[in-house]
């Protein structure tokens, strides 16, 4: 489950990035060695503030909706006495899930949107159900067949919500309607998928197997129920709503056609055949591999969703693939020109991070902002991940890996704004 945070700050996109990248190459020589000892204190100093990404959706879940999700966890955990279970391993498995669910009730992130907080409560609800169902199975009050019946009902409910779905929105703001429906239908389809009978089996133990079946069903039910409730709230805010389904399907078809050729596994040899330098074990290799993998996964996701008839669901991954495609081209040119070798010091790594943060800030200032915020997650995440590694283990952190991660963020941030603007043009017309 990925969490995306969003934020917008205006900046000059192309100029800032070009300057940063050329400065990176010109000021810091790159080592020909593949192993370099880095200054630990300089690595530890890399992490810093990252622009917050604000929520893309104009209408957020209500406080009451969040409260009911937390109440669901409390209700399922209420009075759970695990001491009655003689088998210590079964007892411990249930206790572990109970602890995880409880911790979600006590860990509110003030920086999270209500939408993110609600999504963050879906799995804890399933963990609480694991405990409740496990105890019921132990008492012979619940069987796998009971859970299957419940799951089938939840699955049918989740499917019917999407079958009857109407992409309504304000008559003058298809953009707002798009981002709202992208979120709601993402949750809805996740609910359908998780309540599907083809679920994993981890436990042979009868009690724990019933518990895991119920957990999966609850996880999907929570997503589907949240989607339905958020849809209802969104629809209630609309005056004279307009139906955008056909329009969104047309946009999805156009964008997906553009990237469909990347929906197959990238050919590394072909990708790098015109690069006349040694790439092995360099940040440049990691950068190109990561970006081409990103392009492939996003394109594959977009095509699959389009083929499944998802009117809005294909658009965001198609935009992600378009962004990654531009980033691959730009990164290849940079690597061909000698960039992204193994850095001799932490300076180029810090410069790449600074460029990535500037790029993220610029992206968040790109209009239409809701689309920019949806793409900003793929920039924010690698910066955050690299920061975390540098912060938690500066002595063990691989400088080349950090460099490559910041470079991924930097290249995606630089590539995204034109894609955001194109999406805006398509969605508005």
């Amino acid at each position: 489950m990925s969490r995306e945070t969003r934020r917008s700050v205006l900046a000059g996109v192309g100029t800032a990035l070009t300057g940063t990248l050329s400065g990176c190459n010109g000021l810091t020589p790159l080592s020909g060695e593949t192993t370099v000892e880095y200054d630990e204190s300089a690595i530890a100093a890399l992490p810093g503030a990252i622009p917050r990404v604000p929520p893309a959706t104009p209408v957020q879940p209500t406080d009451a909706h969040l409260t009911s999700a937390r109440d669901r966890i409390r209700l399922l955990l209420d009075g759970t006495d695990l001491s009655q279970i003689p088998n210590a391993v079964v007892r411990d498995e249930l206790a572990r899930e109970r602890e995880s669910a409880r911790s979600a009730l006590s860990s509110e992130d003030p920086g999270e949107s209500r939408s993110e907080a609600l999504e963050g409560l879906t799995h804890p609800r399933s963990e609480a159900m694991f405990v409740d169902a496990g105890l019921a199975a132990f008492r012979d009050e619940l069987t796998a067949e009971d859970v299957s019946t419940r799951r089938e009902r939840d699955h049918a409910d989740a499917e019917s919500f999407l079958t009857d779905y109407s992409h309504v929105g304000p008559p003058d703001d298809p953009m707002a309607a798009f981002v709202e429906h992208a979120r709601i239908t993402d949750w809805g389809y996740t609910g359908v998928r998780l309540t599907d009978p083809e679920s994993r089996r981890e436990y042979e133990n009868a009690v724990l197997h019933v518990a895991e079946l119920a957990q999966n069903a609850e996880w999907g039910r929570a997503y589907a129920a949240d989607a339905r409730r958020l849809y209802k709230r969104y629809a209630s805010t609309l005056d004279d709503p307009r139906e955008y389904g056909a329009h969104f399907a047309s946009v999805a078809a156009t964008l997906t056609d553009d990237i469909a050729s990347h929906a197959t596994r990238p050919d590394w040899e072909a990708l790098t055949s015109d690069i006349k330098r040694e790439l092995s074990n360099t940040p440049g290799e990691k950068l190109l591999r990561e970006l081409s993998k990103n392009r492939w996964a996003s394109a594959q996701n977009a095509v699959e969703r389009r083929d499944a008839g998802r009117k809005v669901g294909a658009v965001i991954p198609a935009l992600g693939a378009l962004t990654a495609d531009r980033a691959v081209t730009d990164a290849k040119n940079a690597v061909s020109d000698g960039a992204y070798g193994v850095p001799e010091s932490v300076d180029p790594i810090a410069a790449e991070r600074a460029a990535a943060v500037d790029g993220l800030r610029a992206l968040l200032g790109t209009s239409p902002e809701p689309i920019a915020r949806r793409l900003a997650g793929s920039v924010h995440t690698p910066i955050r991940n690299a920061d975390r590694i540098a912060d938690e283990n500066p002595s063990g952190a691989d400088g080349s890996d950090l460099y490559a991660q910041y470079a991924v963020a930097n290249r995606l941030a630089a590539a995204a704004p034109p894609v955001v603007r194109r999406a805006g043009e398509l969605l508005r017309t």
Partner: protein
Amino acid sequence: MTRSTSDRPPIVAPRESTDTDESADDTASDPLTSHVIGSESGSEAVAFAGDATNVAAVRRLISETAYASESVLLYQTRVRDCYTLQLNYVARDDDGSPDVQFCHVIRDAEVDCERDAWGHVAAAVRLPFPDDEYSGLSIGTGGSCGRIPSRYNESEPA
């Protein structure tokens, strides 16, 4: 599957042996880890500890095996008290050698056990071919029960 409730393993004879000396002192050798029964006379040599569970079922499996076309694998090992072994699959390698894989599963919730305590289990698996059809045998115990590896097109039921 049989299990002992003491430190003694559930199958106490035949014992592990490094040679074929029939006169060797059985009680001096280790408890068996694996043993193939290929004949009715071989089945008669199997003996169980006094506190072994499920002995009747294991005896029945051994005695009802048609040794002209079948054989029985006995496999005995230590296991944590809250777990037991489950047969995952039986397959045959290209040379005909059986590949018998077990997995660990958590015992019933009603079983009173502690996480760090240990015991012994023994499995009796009827193989659908006589022991003279193979000279080797591989046995594995994975952590969890999974699918049969794709190199085996189809599995032979035990």
